[in-house]
């Protein structure tokens, strides 16, 4: 039983991160039907900025928590600016273009960011400084660390804040209106370009936090870390129903837990025919099954294709 609890804890932590990143995908898709494949790289840049700040501040003798907070505080605006610049430079000029064009651009931006990071931070995996000492707590025989607790709490707080913003504020209403129909929203006096830019900025800010959390959790930062994480988060968004905020959260958590349980039990279930390296396969089987029976995703609504 304790093993099962441990796997669920692992999965929830992983899933919380997926969910936060997935929100970035789903928000952008919801508004302009663009799959921003460069979103994973924003997570990576966030981790890298935080890495540099922590390395610079670590010998200063500040309390570790303050160092990490400053690092996160630096990573968020940088990533927000990056998100804004990406939208302004790479996507806005293509707003009226066929859908494939911005998609390819997104892949291009992703490659550029990756190599840009490689030039600055080098090719080696960077050991993320462990300024916060990891402390484990016992939960029914399983261990949960302080870092895991922080990830769960921060992710939940961010998701709650985002949901409140989207569903309770005037700006949120503008976002939803733009998502439903940008032309009409524009006629109603909404500056849709501003709303779209803001969506990118908010998503990028959350990605920055996710980057710091992931790098801290695994103790490693690398210029390629964004792409696989981004892909998983994208799948989580699709699983929950892309364009749907609660869907992305649910999809992320679900994917994380399925992955952890899959890795933990796939060997036993198949008589060691499949090893734990097939944990991704396990996760994707779930994704495919869901999409076969509910193509719109778990919480997605069946909507007609918009041009």
């Amino acid at each position, binding site marked *: 039983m304790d093993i099962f609890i441990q796997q669920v804890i692992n999965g929830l932590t992983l899933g919380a991160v997926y969910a936060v990143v997935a929100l970035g995908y789903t928000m952008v898709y919801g508004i302009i039907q663009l799959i921003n494949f460069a979103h994973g790289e924003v997570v990576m840049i966030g981790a890298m900025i935080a890495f540099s700040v922590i390395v610079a501040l670590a010998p200063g003798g500040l309390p570790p928590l303050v160092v990490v907070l400053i690092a996160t505080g630096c990573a968020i605006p940088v990533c927000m600016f990056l998100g804004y610049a990406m939208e302004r430079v790479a996507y806005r000029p293509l707003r009226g273009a066929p859908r494939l064009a911005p998609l390819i651009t997104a892949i291009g931006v992703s490659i550029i960011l990756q190599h840009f990071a490689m030039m600055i931070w080098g090719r080696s*995996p960077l050991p993320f400084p462990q300024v916060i000492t990891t402390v484990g707590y016992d939960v029914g025989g399983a*261990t949960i660390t302080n870092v895991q607790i922080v990830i769960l709490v921060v992710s939940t707080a961010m998701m709650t804040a985002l949901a409140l913003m989207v569903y309770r504020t005037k700006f949120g209403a503008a976002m939803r209106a733009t998502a439903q129909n940008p032309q009409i929203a524009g006629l109603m006096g909404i500056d849709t370009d501003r709303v779209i830019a803001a969506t990118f900025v908010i998503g990028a800010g959350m990605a920055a936090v996710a980057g710091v959390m992931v790098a801290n959790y695994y*103790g490693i930062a690398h210029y390629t870390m964004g792409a696989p994480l981004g892909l998983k988060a994208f799948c989580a968004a699709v699983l929950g129903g892309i364009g749907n905020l609660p869907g992305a959260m649910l999809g992320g958590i679900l994917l994380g837990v399925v992955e952890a349980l899959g890795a*933990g039990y796939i060997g036993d279930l198949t008589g060691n025919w499949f090893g734990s390296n097939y944990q991704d396969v396990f996760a994707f089987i779930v994704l495919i099954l869901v999409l076969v029976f509910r193509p719109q995703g778990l919480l997605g609504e069946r909507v007609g294709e918009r041009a």
Partner: protein
Amino acid sequence: MQPRLSAIALATVAAFGLVACGKEEPPKPAAKAEAPAAPPPPPTMTVNIGHVAPLTGGIAHLGKDNENGARLAIEQANAAKISIDGKEVKFVLIAEDDQADPKVGATVAQKLVDAKVAGVVGHLNSGTSIPASPIYNQAGIPVISGSATNPKLTEQGFKQQFRVVGRDDQQGPAVAIYLAGTAKPKTVAVIDDATAYGAGLADEVEKTLKAAGVKVLAREKGTDKTTDWKAVLTKVKGRNPDAIFYGGMDATGGPLLKQGRELGIKAVFAFGDGACTDEMRKLAGEKAAEGLICSQAGIPAQASSKKFLDAYKAKYNVDPILYAPFTYDATNLLIEAMKKANSADPAKYLPELQKIHFNGATGPIAFDEKGDRKDAEITIFTMKGDKLEPTAIMKGGKTIAYNDFLQMLATAVSAAGDAAKAPVDSAAQAGRDAAKAAVEAGKAATGTPK
């Protein structure tokens, strides 16, 4: 550039001399006539040597380290102005990136073959070396890997395939014997990264452990990009092993170790050469890394010749990480064989390479008929305090304490240096006896069947 400039200068001087003499002869024969007085620069020849390692991706730092080793050898050879077949040779290193990807490895190999390189140093990974090897073999280009340890590489019967490191079927058993002998585990979990290298090494470890009567759990696997090992480790923790062996690189091994300790796993962690770097301490955290055991095919980088270490440090301003001394040696072997054959033609210098005896930065090197290094040592390291310390040398399935090994090396050198003097000989014999006793002691301690 330099030789061509001086050639022009010489020609100019010759022409001026001609004008000064005021003779009416056409310039061409005149230049010929002047030649004995002012000898023309020796004709030059360019020899391309390929180097392949991942220069992007997760282990790009190791790839760069490999390349640095080869580049250093090339530059030293150029500075020494080696002449082959009466021509001064300019060696050029063509460094390629195979991204540690088997498909790219084969593409890059074809590219080097098309570029008509005289020899290749690489690839870094076994997973890329093996698919690339038939391409080199078909073109008859000698290849020396400084780091690929999978046995299959040299088991394909390719006459021009060599390596200057030990094999996984030497390394795997070595680390397994050491692990079984020191940690005395009842149950061991074996994890690998599903690459030719990681899985191959893990197989050898598992085989040896089982033969030694140790219970080995069902294999767990990740990939060479896995950073989240929590699920695998949680499962392993439930089986309560006394030791965990991971076949893979440091970029994945570091997080594995860190997460294992976070989950409260108290077992001894052991690794192969791919994760036998000081990076492990940074990636896993100092506390988690303390006491880890790892093996390296060959001798430790810091035990390679001081001349090499100093030259490397002077050129790159860092210390070699892992295999730089081996790629350095591999490059020098190619050059040495070309010198001996007095030709840079692969078909002509290959026989020289096969029977070469060379004193490299990693010790004396000779190849067996498969192209493997004869008498390859495997070193066992333990993380103590802030660095990896060599604790034992495994040779032919025997354990030799590291200090005894150094003593043996010293005695071997002094014995070789002054073989005629009987007292030295007997001293060397005494040293060898002591070493032999140590070996026996180690053997007894490990309790292995062989």
